[in-house]
């Protein structure tokens, strides 16, 4: 009986093990769906894993999977994807991932032997890592064959698509171009009683702030916590990049910088008076928001404004369609303020990058979709979608684009002045320490000068470890 039992269990275990082996797919068993393809190939032993080029074209219904974070432009892209499918019979699945976990999910995918997506619409800062670690397919040879590169706005090309910046090496095609802008309560600004009170208090007319000093003054004027009315809501969150993206608009305007103009040298450049002034100024305006305003992520900034309590907001233009839909003519939009004539908007937006970890057949399908998307006629449709901000310079400069929505004009005016954070491969470490030390200075845990000195030293250590200094 005992022998019988042990023999039976041995057989069972052996059968299970063998059946596991049988389930391993053949290298050419990559499904038509990129996701199933990913799963199949992940089970293939590394030694037998086929190079992308060796994989035969899939038969039957074709599809590509695009990953983007969860927001309105992704819905617009999915709608365009359906048009593409109707024309080509290639389905486009746009999978929307919550922003808070987007980076880690994408990076984890890249850590495997295959990615679940064929195309990732990656944050602009990721491009250095994507390009230098062989995660993004290089598009330098291919892209000019499908689009006139001169038609792509140079700032979009530099920050969203090329690595190193301005090198002419393309690792992404432009998808969504974005910048930080300002929304304000037009009805409050036009209210006769408010105008008179402002005039009396400051001796000048209440108008949309054109400079950061005016912004501070207007925010101070509207800051009335007892009436549940607040001056401004600006990104200040520490979880991902909120504080940094909000702060940059002040940083560059005040003459501060992250690093030297032509090198990655940080000490002596970041810890200078311009940056210190910018931190001190940002600290002041952060405190002119609702209670707890020193920790607002992009969604909470929006919430503070759309709940009707806040006079002004700084956020990405891509979030503005919802504001306009809710407030209609009661809200106005503008470019970020300037300081001593210098105006710089923090860049947002993302490009299409093709994963190197999918079969060549999927890469070809992805290229077909990107080529289709970049056509002028499709770009003209893209700008009609909520926050579908094109990188096509001619469309951006056209009066038709400006007339389309009240925020398109300020957006078009912002794009020439937009700049981005580091996009080197170790950007995420640089971002972490920036969030930490700028956050400590904004919170008053450290004096600005000391926090920036520590930040500069820490950044140089990270850059040196990454071989970039």
């Amino acid at each position, binding site marked *: 009986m005992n022998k019988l039992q042990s023999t039976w269990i041995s057989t069972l275990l052996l059968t299970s093990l063998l059946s596991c082996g049988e389930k391993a797919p053949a290298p050419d068993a990559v499904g038509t769906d990129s996701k199933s393809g990913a799963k199949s190939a992940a089970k293939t032993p590394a030694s037998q894993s086929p190079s992308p080029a060796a994989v035969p074209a899939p038969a039957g219904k074709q599809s590509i999977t695009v990953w983007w974070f969860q927001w309105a432009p992704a819905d617009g892209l999915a709608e365009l994807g359906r048009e593409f499918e109707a024309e080509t019979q290639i389905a486009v699945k746009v999978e929307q991932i919550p922003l808070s976990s987007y980076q880690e999910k994408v990076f984890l995918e890249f850590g495997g032997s295959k990615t679940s997506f064929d195309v990732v619409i990656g944050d602009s800062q990721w491009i250095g890592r994507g390009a230098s670690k062989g995660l993004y397919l290089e598009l330098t040879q291919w892209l000019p064959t499908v689009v006139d590169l001169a038609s792509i706005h140079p700032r979009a090309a530099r920050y969203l698509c090329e690595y190193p910046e301005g090198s002419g090496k393309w690792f992404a095609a432009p998808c969504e171009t974005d910048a930080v802008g300002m929304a304000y309560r037009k009805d409050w600004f036009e209210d006769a009683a408010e105008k008179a009170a402002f005039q009396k208090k400051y001796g000048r007319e209440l108008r949309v702030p054109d400079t950061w000093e005016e912004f501070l003054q207007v925010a101070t004027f509207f800051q009335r916590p007892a009436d549940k009315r607040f001056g401004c809501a600006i990104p200040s969150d520490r979880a991902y990049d909120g504080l940094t993206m909000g702060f940059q608009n002040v940083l560059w305007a005040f003459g501060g910088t992250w690093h030297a103009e032509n090198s990655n040298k940080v000490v002596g450049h970041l810890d200078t008076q311009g940056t210190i002034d910018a931190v001190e100024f940002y600290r002041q305006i952060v405190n002119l928001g609702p209670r707890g305003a020193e920790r607002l992520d992009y969604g909470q900034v929006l919430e503070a404004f759309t709940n009707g309590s806040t006079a002004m907001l700084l956020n990405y233009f891509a979030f503005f369609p919802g504001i306009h839909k809710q407030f209609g003519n009661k809200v106005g939009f503008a470019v970020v303020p300037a300081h001593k004539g210098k105006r710089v908007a923090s860049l947002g937006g993302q490009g299409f990058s093709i994963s190197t970890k999918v079969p060549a057949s999927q890469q070809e399908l992805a290229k077909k979709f990107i080529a289709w998307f970049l056509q002028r006629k499709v770009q003209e449709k893209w700008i009609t979608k909520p926050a579908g901000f094109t990188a096509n310079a001619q469309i951006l400069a056209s009066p038709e684009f400006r007339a389309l929505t009240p925020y398109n004009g300020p957006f078009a005016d912002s794009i020439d002045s937009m700049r981005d954070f580091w996009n080197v491969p170790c950007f*995420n470490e640089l971002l972490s320490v920036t969030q930490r030390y700028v956050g400590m200075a904004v919170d008053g845990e450290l004096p600005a000068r000391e926090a920036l000195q520590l930040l500069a030293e820490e950044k140089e250590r990270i850059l040196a470890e990454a071989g970039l200094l």
Partner: protein
Amino acid sequence: MQGARRTARPGRQRLGWWLVAPTLVLLVGFNVFPLLYNVVLSFTNAELTGGERRSLGGANYGRVFRDPVFAGALRRTALFVASVVSAELILGLVLALALVKRFPGKHVVLTLLLIPMMLSPAVMGLFWGLILNGNYGILNQALGAAGLSQPQWLTDRDLKFWSIVLIDVWMWTPFMMLIALAGLGAIPPSIYEAAQIDRAGPWRVFWRITLPMTAPVLGLAVLFRATDALKQFDLVMATTGPNDASTQTLSTLLYQVVFRDGKVGLGSAFACTVLVVVMALATVFTRYIDRMQKTEAAA
């Protein structure tokens, strides 16, 4: 008969091995292998996005011991553990002493008190995030309505750490209470009767009978809570996020290093160091409890 049993024993032993084999395979697969793999990774420059991996020798460990951020997280975690465990122990024991006697509705009170412990920490973190929100949180709304000041519970640098301590104490005091109740219930009534005959006062009874006799059980509860609090992650993530200099614990620092910075090698070195510290502390503590139990048994 005896001989037959002896001959059957090797077969039964084999069967035993076969029966535990799946568990052993799972344990090795999910515990031992990841642990060893983590040690291997800690000596490399492994990154979350994969790519070529090379050995760095002990460089990651050198960084761990030099890094002020790690030292800060270690200190913060130690303070967190000490604060929450001591508060939960005292409050839990007080509650247990109050609830040890029978009274009408005792089961309802007990059930209500146990609710926080049964909820998901992540969900509770999010709820408390709403409750403590400085602008629209119900606590500040209530304080404002009462004409009191409205502290910024989760953004004020001096308050946010203690706000998380408060949430943890709210969640886990019932656990201490439950264990303390079990300990109190195990004390033979005859000992209390003898003390009563000797006219011992309540304070003396507490110090000489109740506390010493529940101490081993409470010690175990402290060990459980301390090891759990050392891993504090959910509440910090849900309230202030992983990169807040005032609330970053070891677990959230690990998350930040591995998943946000993508430095898997460095994160593994952090994890190994934390593991050694936790194992050392746990060993000391279990030996202490063991000794306490032996002393108790001898008495």
